[in-house]
C-alpha cells in the first residue's frame, strides 16, 4: 500500500475519532443543542400558519429549508472556522511535520465536517417532524432526491469553506463573515418563499448554494402540491444539480492550490506571530 493511501486511511480513522470527540465534548454538544433550539423556535411559532396556495403550513415549508441551510452553513462555515482555528493552534503545522500528514488531515476534516453536518440536520429534523404536518411522508422517490442532494451539497460547500478558511487571517474574521451570511439567508428563501422578494433579490439569492439546498430538501421532504410555492412552480432538479455542481467544481478546482499555498506558508514563526497578535487583542 502506498504511503498516500496509508495516510488517507489514517485520515478516515482521524475523522471518526474527531466525530466521537465532538459528540462527547460538553461545549460542542451544547452548540448542537442550541442550534436545534434556534431552528425549532420559529418553526413552532408558525407551525399552523397556512402557506397560501401550497396546501402546507409555513412551518412545513421552513423545516426542510432550514435543513438545507444547516447543510450549507456547516459545510462552508464550519470548515472555514476549523481550518482557521487549526492554523492558529498548530494542528496544521503538526500535520505538516508528519509524512503525508496533510492528506490525513484533509480526509479527516471531510469526514468530520460531513458527519457534523448530518447530525446537525438530523437533530432539528427529528424534533421538527413531530411539530409540523406533511413533512417526510412522500416515500421512496423523494428520499432518492436526498441521496444526491446531500452529497452534492457537501461537495458544493466543503471545498469552498476550505478556500475561505485558507484565505482569512484569523478565526475571528470568520465571525465577521457571519453577518453577510445572515443576509444571504434572508434572500435564500429559507424562512419564506423566494417569490415574496423583489425579482432582483431573487436573482442574487439564486447564485448561492443556500437557496438550492433549501429547494432540494423541500423537493425531497414536502408533498408534491407544495411545489406551488416555488419559483416557476417546479422543483427544478436540473437547475439544482447544475448550480450545486458548478459550486462543487469551482471549489474542487480552487481548493487544492489555495490549500497548498496556505500549507506552504505555514511555519512556527507565522503561528507565533498570529498567536502574539491574538494575545494583544485579548490583553
Amino acid at each position, binding site marked *: 500500500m502506498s504511503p498516500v493511501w496509508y495516510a488517507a486511511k489514517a485520515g478516515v480513522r482521524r475523522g471518526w475519532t474527531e466525530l466521537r470527540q465532538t459528540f462527547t465534548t460538553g461545549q460542542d454538544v451544547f452548540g448542537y443543542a442550541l442550534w436545534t433550539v434556534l431552528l425549532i423556535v420559529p418553526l413552532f411559532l408558525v407551525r399552523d400558519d397556512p402557506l397560501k396556495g401550497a396546501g402546507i403550513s409555513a412551518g412545513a415549508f421552513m423545516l426542510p429549508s432550514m435543513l438545507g441551510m444547516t447543510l450549507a452553513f456547516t459545510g462552508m462555515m464550519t470548515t472555514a472556522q476549523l481550518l482557521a482555528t487549526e492554523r492558529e493552534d498548530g494542528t496544521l503545522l*503538526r500535520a505538516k511535520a508528519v509524512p503525508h500528514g496533510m492528506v490525513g488531515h484533509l480526509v479527516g476534516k471531510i469526514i468530520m465536517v460531513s458527519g457534523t453536518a448530518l447530525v446537525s440536520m438530523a437533530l432539528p429534523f427529528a424534533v421538527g417532524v413531530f411539530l409540523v404536518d406533511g413533512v417526510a411522508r412522500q416515500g421512496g422517490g423523494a428520499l432518492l432526491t436526498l441521496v444526491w442532494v446531500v452529497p452534492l451539497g457537501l461537495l458544493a460547500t466543503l471545498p469552498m469553506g476550505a478556500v475561505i478558511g485558507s484565505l482569512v487571517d484569523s478565526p475571528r474574521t470568520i465571525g465577521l463573515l457571519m453577518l453577510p451570511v445572515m443576509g444571504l439567508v434572508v434572500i435564500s428563501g429559507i424562512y419564506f418563499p423566494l417569490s415574496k422578494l423583489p425579482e432582483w433579490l431573487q436573482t442574487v439569492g439564486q447564485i448561492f448554494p443556500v437557496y438550492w439546498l433549501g429547494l432540494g430538501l423541500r423537493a425531497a421532504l414536502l408533498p408534491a402540491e407544495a411545489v406551488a410555492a416555488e419559483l416557476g412552480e417546479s422543483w427544478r432538479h436540473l437547475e439544482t444539480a447544475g448550480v450545486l455542481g458548478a459550486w462543487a467544481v469551482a471549489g474542487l478546482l480552487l481548493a487544492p492550490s489555495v490549500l497548498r499555498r496556505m500549507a506552504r506558508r505555514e511555519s512556527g514563526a507565522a503561528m507565533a506571530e498570529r498567536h502574539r497578535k491574538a494575545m494583544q487583542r485579548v490583553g
Partner: protein
Amino acid sequence: MTTAHALSGAGSSPPSDSDTVIEVRDLRMRYRSQDVLKGVGFTARRGEVVVLLGPNGAGKTTTIEVLEGFRMRSAGDVTVLGTDPARGDERWRARLGIVLQSWRDHGKWRVRELLAHLGSYYAPYSTTLVRRPWDVDELIAAVGLTEQADKRVGTLSGGQRRRFDVAVGIVGRPELLFLDEPTAGLDPEARSEFHGLVRGLADENTTVLLTTHDLAEAEKLADRILILAGGRIVADGAAEELSRQASAEATVRWTRDGQPFEEATAEPTRFVRRLFEEHGETIGGLEVRRASLEDTYLTMVRELEAGSVPGERAAHTFGEESR
C-alpha cells in the same frame, strides 16, 4: 549489533554517505530589507547534541525552520540527511522529528490516542533497521506520561505538555530531532527531567539540534554549542572549549600596603609569581578571576541588545580560532 545484521538491513533504509547529518554553508535570510541571517555555517554529526544558543531574535527559529523545510532560504547551501530541505519529500520527512514552540493543538485528543494516530503515518517507512512507529505505551513510559495516557491533551500541565510534544516529535523514531526552545516556561524539575530525556535520545544515536537562549541549559546538554548572534555563528565548540576561549584573560586584584590594585592579564600565573617575587609579604587580598563563559555570553548579549555591537565584534569576543 553485528556488521552482518547492519548490512542486511542496509537495502531498505538508505544510510547517509557519511556521518554528517546537517551541513549548512553561508545560509542567508532576508525579510523585506532586513538581513536576519548573514552567512550561517555549521555541521552536525550523527548522534551529536548541538545546541544553537543566542539571544531572542537572533534568528534561531528561522535557522531551524529552514532546516526543517518549513521556510525557504534567501541564499546558501543546506543539506539535511543528505537532502536539500527545500526539496525534501515525505520519505525524507519521515526521518525527521520536529518539536516547535507553543503547540496548543489537539486539545480534545487523549494522549495515547493522538500518539497512536500520528505514529500510524510512519508505519510505511518502517525498515528492518528502524522499526517505525515507536510502540505507543513504551514511548509514553519513556517520556514519563504513563499516568496521563488516558487524559485529554488539553488538560496536561506545562511540563507534561512539553514532554508530550517531544513524544510526538520522536514517535516516528527520527534520525534527527529538532527542538525549538523546548524548556521555555518549565520549572527546574521538569527542565531537569527533560534534559535526561534528550541525553537518552542522543545515546541511541539520534542527532539533536536544540535552540535555547539559556546558557546553563546549553552547557548541560550540548556536545557542541553554536552561538548565534547578529545573524552569524560567532562561536562553535564544546562548552569547555568556549569557556577556555572566553576566559583567555583574567583579572588579578590585590592589595599592597592596604592599597588596592587591579590588572588584566593573559597569563595570571606568571603575573602573580612575579608579583610575589617583587613585593613578597606586602601583598594581600589576592584574587584571580577568569571570565566565565556566562560572563562573556551575557556581556555579548547585553551589548547586542543595546545595539552597540555588530556581529563582527561579537565574533571577536570568542577569538578568531573559534571560526
